[in-house]
């Protein structure tokens, strides 16, 4: 039992969407709550059961009402749970906090909210746990954490309790004082923030909040009230407010109370764990930043301790103080010291790599007392970072990639700033370093080395693209590298793409591509392997995109590789290689200097069209050849235009584009997921099954009817299917993209095993403005019970994208499975009546699965006839001789029957029921209740 829950909960948390596909959130929530209430259940398991509520409260309680009910339920579980299960009770408080805050709409707070708040406040004040033989983590601490989280979500919620919280913190001597302090600091910060937002607020209000003056309190209470939570401003840090403005509260010099509250918190800050201490200092920094009357020097006493710390988060707080107060707390010597400290820390042998990287980032965003730039760009070099200081951060090949790149970037910025373009030693060092990386790549570096080298190369180019001697040399080195390792082609192409994109004024990428084209075309074909050739073609394709690069070398190279005499490469008929060749040709077709290449290109295409070993390639070559020789330049360009803006048409792509260059194909080949259901199936108003016109003049039958009837069951095709009709329509969600859908393939999946697997169905198209298509679903029951089906669909939209969507489930109702008696067509009424009589007799014996029952209800004569007419007409096998009795025979595939004798007795209408499948009784009962009620 317990292990079942462990798996269930972990399956839910791993993927709630997949989990809820098999059940629904209400069902799961109900199960969880039932198990939580169960006294026999193990409390360790119960703790686990709370985790779905803590992690996904909004999913399990999607509405206020569900949230409300769940919260009340959890609160009652809390009151009933024995106090010794502290962990469970603590987790329960956490779960309650999550449910109460996350399930409610932001605007309307749940009614259980104040009760829970009272409970938390009461728990937070309950010091009785101290004297007992005490659990490890007291409920009190958790209550404080929950309160803090609520205050964080609804800033100002507890501002009237500030004095109380301060008092608790003051009296507490166990480790718990940290929890109170964290709470108090946040409440204080939010309260001060709230006052800054009020026009008339001043020293008196502040004093009132801190518990000095009761009379003003009420007034403030009325106006302020906790923030609704709609506004995000109180949640965000005030130190980095928009445009660097800090909301301020003008109090005049008189704010002794606040000052003493701050000092007392600061004095004790040393007693807190580094994480809590940093958070506390940060909150207090915010408070002091908002109240100009408090001098930032209040932090002075803590500063030295913080500057020497080995804790990343404490030093970070110091930096944030620096950023908030600049020279009102840090003199220029302090600033220089702090900065040096950062440089030390960013290469300290005892710190972890992520910490060092973080400090490096801090260097680039150092809050200077007197910044020179106004910080438009993301990264600005602080004046304090001299090349000499920065030399501590020179990259070396032993660095890990992230450190290396980060240092490379930093040093590049430093040397750029120092104007080292010409003969600076620093720049030389960087270039040498880049060369070292290149050597490593050359001598078989791992993938990571390769990527790091190309990133470093990009950084170098990005900063020093104007220093020609290095950049030209780099191009040469890259060409040599390429000749040795052609597999770096995608990296080189990527480097060319990025430099071109980021440095539109630089012609470096063009130079590189030109050089690559040259070295490729100069390579003797005989020395080229098939793999090299593929990469060469990739590079040449890229080079052919540049109008400024003359393509004669490329043409020479292509003519070199195609004659079968010179190599076995192209005669091999490799499809991918052929695509590579055609890819280059295709780019050449739209190259501006096409005129001058007309004849050699035509020759190449003609040759490929005639001699290539692969039919598909020959066909495409022929198409290109025809296009080249028959179309004008403009038309050619239009036909072959690629990378068209936005809604590219698929038709164009399939006409002229081949596999190898279809980067855009990815989105075509990917199946996209719709965010909401956009189509659905609704039940079609199916035409009533008519009562069959029966052959009247039929002779009495000698043979036993039942046996003849049953003999049909042997045949596999016998009446085993139920056909349902649905209309496929759009849902209310309007999205123009989905107005016209094509090739819709509907997939049905079963939720139980009452039916055989269903075939997918195809619908050619669905247009919003046209009548909805009818979808016929053929169900083959194994057991004739109601069920529901999951439906999903894959379809194509007009822009050629393929989508997957989930449709709302469809229900298979009980009455939809009813079929009239599947008697042989030659039978008349008498035969059917005989079957009815025979079956009735058998079933009344109540042997095996057979059962009979009676359903009564009040109905007038007329209403009864109407009801029978409406619901049972196709199934009637009434004997005309019994005028006051209707007989209906419902056949439920594959082999079940429900027989009804309906008659009006003096007090009520009696539905006598007989069936050969007793499990159908509840369903028939429900059904009868439903139809007789309406």
């Amino acid at each position, binding site marked *: 039992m317990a292990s079942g829950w462990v798996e269930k909960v972990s399956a839910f*948390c791993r*993927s709630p969407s997949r989990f809820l596909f098999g059940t629904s959130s209400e069902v799961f929530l109900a199960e969880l709550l039932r198990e939580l209430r169960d006294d026999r259940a193990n409390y360790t398991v119960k*703790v686990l059961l709370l985790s779905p509520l803590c*992690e996904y409260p909004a999913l399990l309680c999607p509405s206020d009402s569900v949230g409300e009910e769940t919260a009340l339920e959890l609160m009652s579980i809390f009151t009933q749970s024995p106090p010794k299960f502290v962990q469970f009770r*603590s987790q329960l408080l*956490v779960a309650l*906090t*999550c449910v109460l805050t996350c399930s409610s709409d*932001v605007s309307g707070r749940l009614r259980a909210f104040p009760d829970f708040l009272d409970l938390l406040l009461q728990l937070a004040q309950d010091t009785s746990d101290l004297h007992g033989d*005490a659990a*490890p*983590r007291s409920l009190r601490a958790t209550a404080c*954490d*929950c309160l803090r*989280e609520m205050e*964080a979500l609804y800033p100002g919620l507890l501002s009237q309790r500030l004095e109380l919280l301060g008092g608790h913190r003051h009296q507490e*001597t*166990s480790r718990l004082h*940290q929890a109170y302090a964290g709470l108090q600091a946040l409440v204080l910060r939010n309260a001060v923030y709230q006052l800054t937002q009020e026009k008339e607020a001043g020293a008196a209000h502040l004093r009132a909040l801190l518990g000095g003056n009761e009379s003003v309190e009420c007034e403030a209470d009325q106006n302020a009230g906790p923030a609704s939570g709609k506004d*995000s*401003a109180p*949640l965000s*840090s005030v130190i*980095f407010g*928009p445009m660097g403005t800090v909301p301020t509260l003008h109090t005049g010099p008189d704010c002794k109370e606040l000052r003493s509250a701050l000092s007392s918190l600061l004095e004790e800050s040393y007693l*807190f*764990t*580094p*994480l809590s201490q*940093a*958070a506390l200092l940060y909150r207090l920094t915010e408070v002091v930043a908002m109240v100009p009357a408090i001098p930032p020097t209040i932090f002075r006493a803590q500063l030295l301790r913080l500057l*020497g*710390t080995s804790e*990343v*988060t404490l030093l*970070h707080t110091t930096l944030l103080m620096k*950023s908030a107060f600049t020279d009102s707390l840090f003199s220029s010597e302090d600033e220089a010291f702090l900065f*040096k400290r950062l440089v030390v820390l960013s290469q*300290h*042998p*005892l710190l972890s790599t992520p910490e060092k*990287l*973080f400090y490096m980032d*801090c260097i680039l*965003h150092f809050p200077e007392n007197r910044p020179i730039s106004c910080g438009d760009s993301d990264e600005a070099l602080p004046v304090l970072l001299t090349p000499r200081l920065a030399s501590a951060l020179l990259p070396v090949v*032993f660095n890990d990639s992230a450190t290396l790149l980060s240092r490379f970037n930093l040093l590049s910025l430093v040397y750029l700033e120092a104007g080292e373009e010409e003969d600076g030693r620093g720049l030389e060092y960087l270039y040498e370093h880049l*060369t*070292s990386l290149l050597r490593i*790549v050359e*001598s*078989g570096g791992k*993938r990571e080395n390769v*990527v790091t080298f190309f*990133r470093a190369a*990009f*950084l170098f180019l990005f900063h020093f693209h104007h220093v020609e001697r290095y950049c030209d040399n780099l191009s040469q080195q890259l060409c040599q590298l390429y000749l040795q390792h052609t*597999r770096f082609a995608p*990296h080189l192409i990527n480097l060319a793409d*990025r430099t071109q994109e980021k440095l539109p004024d630089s012609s470096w990428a063009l130079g590189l591509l030109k050089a690559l084209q040259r070295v490729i075309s100069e390579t003797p074909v005989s020395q080229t392997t098939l793999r090299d050739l593929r990469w060469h073609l990739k590079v040449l394709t890229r080079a052919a995109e540049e109008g400024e690069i003359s393509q004669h070398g490329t043409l020479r190279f292509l003519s070199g590789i195609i004659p079968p005499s010179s190599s076995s490469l192209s005669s091999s008929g490799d499809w991918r290689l052929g695509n590579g060749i055609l890819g280059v040709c295709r780019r050449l077709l739209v190259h501006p200097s096409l005129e001058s290449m007309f004849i050699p290109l035509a020759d190449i295409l003609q040759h490929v069209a005639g001699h290539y070993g692969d039919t598909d390639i020959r066909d495409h070559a022929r198409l290109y050849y025809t296009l080249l020789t028959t179309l004008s330049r403009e038309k050619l360009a239009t036909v072959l235009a690629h990378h068209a803006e936005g809604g590219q048409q698929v038709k164009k792509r399939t006409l002229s584009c081949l596999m190898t260059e279809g980067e855009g194909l990815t989105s075509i080949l990917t199946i996209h*997921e719709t965010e909401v259901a956009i189509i659905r199936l609704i039940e079609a108003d199916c035409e009533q099954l008519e009562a069959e016109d029966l052959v009247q003049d039929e002779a009495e039958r000698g043979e036993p009817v039942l046996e003849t009837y049953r003999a049909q069951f042997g045949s596999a095709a016998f009446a085993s299917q139920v056909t349902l009709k649905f209309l496929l329509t759009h849902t209310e969600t309007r999205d123009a993209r989905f107005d016209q859908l094509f090739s819709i393939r509907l997939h049905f999946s079963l939720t139980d095993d009452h039916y055989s697997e269903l075939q997918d169905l195809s619908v050619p198209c669905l247009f919003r403005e046209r009548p909805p298509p009818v979808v016929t679903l053929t169900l083959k029951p194994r057991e004739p019970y109601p069920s529901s089906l999951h439906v999903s669909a894959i379809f194509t939209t007009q822009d050629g994208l393929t989508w997957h969507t989930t449709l709302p489930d469809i229900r298979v109702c009980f009455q939809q499975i009813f079929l009239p008696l599947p008697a042989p067509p030659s039978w008349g009424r008498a035969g059917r009546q005989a079957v009815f009589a025979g079956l009735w007799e058998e079933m009344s014996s109540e042997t095996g699965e057979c059962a009979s029952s009676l359903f009564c209800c009040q109905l007038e004569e007329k209403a009864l006839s109407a009801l029978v007419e409406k619901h049972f007409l196709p199934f009637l096998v009434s004997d005309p001789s019994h005028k006051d009795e209707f007989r209906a025979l419902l056949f439920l595939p594959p082999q079940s029957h429900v027989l009804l004798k309906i008659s009006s007795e003096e007090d009520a209408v009696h539905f006598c029921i007989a069936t050969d499948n007793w499990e159908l009784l509840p369903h028939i009962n429900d059904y009868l209740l439903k139809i007789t009620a309406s």
Partner: protein
Amino acid sequence: MSLRALWIISHEKGEHASIRFSRRFATVELRAKRLSGSSYVAVPEDDCFLQLLLTELGLSGSKQAFVAQRDDCLYRPRSPALELHITAPGKGTLWPVLAISQAHLTLACLPLVDASPGQRPPLSSLLSESQGLSFLAGLQTFLLAPGSKQDGEGLVSRLALLPSVLLQVCPLGTPLELPLTGTLAMPSPLTSAGIQKQPAWRTGLYRGRAVVNVSVVETVRSMQYGNRSRQDLWDVYGTVACKCEVEGVLPNVTVTLSLPPNGSPLQDILVHPCVTSLDSSVLTASSVEHWDGSAFSGPYKFPFSPPLEPFILCSYTSQVPVPPILGSYQLKEEESQLHVSVVLKLHESVKNSFEYCEAHLPFYNRDQMGVVEVKVSSGQLDVSKEKNLLVWALGQKFPKTREVTMEGKILFSGPEPGPSEPLCTGLTAYIKLYFKVPDTTLSGCSVDQHSVQVYSSAKPRIVTSRELHSKDYWIWNSTAFHSLL
């Protein structure tokens, strides 16, 4: 200051990756939603997150040479905060995802960005960033703490403890403290300790005789090229580890580090947060500045109130004038053989009494070693099982001359090729030294037993120790062209 979600992932070099634990903090997520408004990007489900993270860390699809998403040369200054690009459903960029890895365990979290939506704030302006880093590092220590085999049952049992640990250290997404690593047990019950407040990081009260244990461990690193054009490098850093068993709620202990006369000052001092106060002169010396000779050189006083568990009181770096062992390594290719010549000199200032001292000479990008005709003047030489490494065990002492040599020829005629290493092509090769010297430090830094002050009624027992060991101590072949390094 809060985290939206937390993940613990195990993998073997990117293969068989699985999420071993994950936790989403719903209330923080709600704050994230309100803070970022329309630009809100929800945390994806575990499977999706795992794929994105592995790609971003370059751990997925290791067989493919170039994956645009992973290998783009465009430098994004991302580390330590990663960016994950979520495709449908719920498109957007998840930032800043912090991830730290050790061995095959990767820990990741998503800190809350408490800034107004729109422009992305710099990483350094988010306190949640450093909090996340600290918290992840603390969790990592907890999960991989000694006594637990990394993938064995230790990790499994610690992962099983995680839900209750999180309830204690981070119940609602705001990390409050780091999990205790010393014992698997929970902290001791709350105690009221009279008028003095108990520090939140002191998890209980010690009763018994006061014992203070202080050990100074120095590590020396070196990179010796034996080449005029390239300066040899070495550096020394030290840590002072303490274990204090002292009675009292907030006991006072002072440890003083002292240097010999003319010793170069301790630099880059970092102290544990339990140090109560610091003299500003202690922090002045820094390795990134040139020392003008006038800097403060001790004694360094550290008054503190110790936590119960062992901790690093402080760390420092030091500039010593010479490396403890100076080496020279020369290789010459002679036809099919490699002529090897090594000289190692122990500096006279270093105590000649090792716990161990070994020189490793690996050979890469060659066949396995066939014939090894190498003589050593002292110690013992072994060829590794894989036939690509010479291990020279120098024992506990250098000879009186403080100099040892190795001379000889190696024929690489083994049947199989040895390992490859892109750094060591041609004659580029190195010796790596592993040594440990007890009861000494290079900087001369020491803690005198009598300088440790404990303010308590009973006389405390005080134990101090020192040791020096090597790490990344490389001696490169001086005959190779070192453009690589």
